[in-house]
């Protein structure tokens, strides 16, 4: 019996380091990420342009939430506010009740354009190491983090190559591996699979679900692909455009584990994607 229990224990330990102090997490009723009446206006006076007007939604710990909306709706602006790259004009975004005022330490971001988010002068492994340098980790842990992150995205063989030597899908996997090695509690992805081919896209979507399961991360994905949103998410936040506002939060109750073929062929899947699509298609 004790032999069978040992691996389970290891997994548990590993998870707790991944998620960094899950015990101190606020009780399940308090959302991990709370966006309240968030608004963003660029410029002022007559030239003012309101991109986001009054967004409110929450993301619970361990949840995958997708944000969908028509292109140009201000999804990227929203993410920049959440990542602390831009201040909100009014309203707040908070993690565990703490208002975000700069890049939060427990968060990692995977950018839309892998082409411009990886350092072309660094090899894959050194790209992973760069964000970890200031954490002053012991060499062994640094190596272990990179090794396991690369293994998770299936790129262990490519660690000495440069990003530009890899295909688009592989580059995006490097960007995801960099986020994993950072061991964030909250992972935010901005249209992460927009510029890869369909097959790679399915693989990366499943990778995203695997990350949530293995690393117990809270994941927020911005996408314009409704099928993708329904496939990935526990909940879908549907945005309306100009200025952006929440049209509805759709609960997705598709069974886990999800599978590209069986899940997508469920009648329930079709019904949910139709729900979301009709929300977006409807003239505002």
């Amino acid at each position: 019996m004790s032999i069978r229990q040992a691996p389970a224990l290891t997994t548990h330990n590993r998870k707790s380091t991944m998620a960094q102090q899950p015990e101190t997490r606020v009780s399940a009723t308090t959302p991990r990420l709370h966006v309240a009446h968030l608004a963003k206006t660029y410029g002022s006076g007559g030239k003012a342009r309101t991109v986001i007007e009054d967004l409110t939604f929450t993301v619970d710990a361990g949840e995958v939430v997708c944000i969908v909306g028509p292109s140009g709706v201000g999804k990227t602006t929203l993410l920049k506010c959440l990542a602390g790259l831009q201040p909100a004009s009014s309203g707040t975004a908070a993690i565990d009740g703490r208002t975000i005022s700069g890049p939060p330490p427990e968060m990692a971001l995977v950018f839309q354009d892998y082409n411009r988010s990886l350092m072309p002068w660094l090899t894959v492994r050194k790209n992973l190491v760069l964000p970890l340098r200031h954490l002053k980790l012991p060499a062994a842990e640094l190596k272990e983090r990179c090794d396991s992150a690369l293994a998770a995205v299936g790129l262990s063989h490519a660690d000495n190559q440069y990003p530009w030597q890899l295909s688009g899908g592989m580059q995006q996997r490097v960007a995801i591996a960099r986020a994993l090695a950072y061991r964030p509690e909250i992972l935010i992805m901005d249209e992460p699979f927009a510029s890869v081919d369909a097959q790679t896209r399915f693989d990366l979507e499943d990778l995203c679900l695997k990350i949530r399961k293995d690393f117990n991360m809270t994941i927020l994905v911005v996408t314009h692909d409704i099928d993708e949103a329904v496939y990935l998410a526990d909940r879908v936040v549907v945005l309306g455009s100009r200025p952006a506002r929440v049209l509805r939060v759709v609960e997705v109750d598709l069974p886990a584990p999800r599978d590209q073929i069986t899940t997508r062929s469920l009648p329930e899947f079709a019904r949910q994607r139709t729900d979301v699509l009709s929300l977006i298609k409807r003239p505002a």
Partner: protein
Amino acid sequence: MRNLAIRNLVIGTGIPVLLLVAWWFLSANSADPFFPPLETILLRFQELWLFDHFQSDVLLSLGNLFLGFAIAAVAGVALGFATALVPPVRWMIDPLIHFLRGIPPVALVPIFISLIGFGTQMRVTSIALAAFFPTMIATVDGIRSVSNDLMDVARVYRLSRKERVLNVLLPAAMPQIFSGLQVSLQVAFIVMIASEMLGSSQGIGAMTLLAQQSFMAADMWAGILLLGVIGFLVNILFGLLRGKVLSWYIGSRRLARAA
């Protein structure tokens, strides 16, 4: 790909060799005092530079060139960073830079002669100051064109300010910095010779000018030949350095072109 490279190498070295051969035969029986036979020029070249004046003049010139260029490179990159990253520095020195860069570098030499005199110091200062501008301006441009996405990545992953400068901005701006350094090197070379011609009795430039003024045409040609050889070798060295530092950039560009 490989064959093409070999072909280019053959053409690249073949043409200069062919020109030299043509020069050799066309000038062989020349009695014109200003255009002596190449054979005479090469003889004087050997007598003068290998190795009679090598230490006293060639090494002196090269020492000034490298010292001046090194000062210009370090100061140019450092001040370029300060200008691009610290707005008050930009407001203070931007107009001044654009005024000074408009003055042909060689025109500064007489000023330095009056200010500092004829010594090595004057020559190194002239070289450094003239070579400074191209590197500095290229550095500023390089930093300004670093993509916002890359800087967002640096901020999200909470890189320190030092890491952002040394591990993101510097390598990202390096291709442009090297373009600036290349121009700086050429300017340094020009000013090295000009400073010697205008205010010195030592160095390759001084020797060459002296030869011209004393109607020693073969010596003059030998000096010019030496300058050509040095310029060529210095550029090759620079190319090797660039290839090493920017291997990622050269590789990615080649791949992008092939695709």
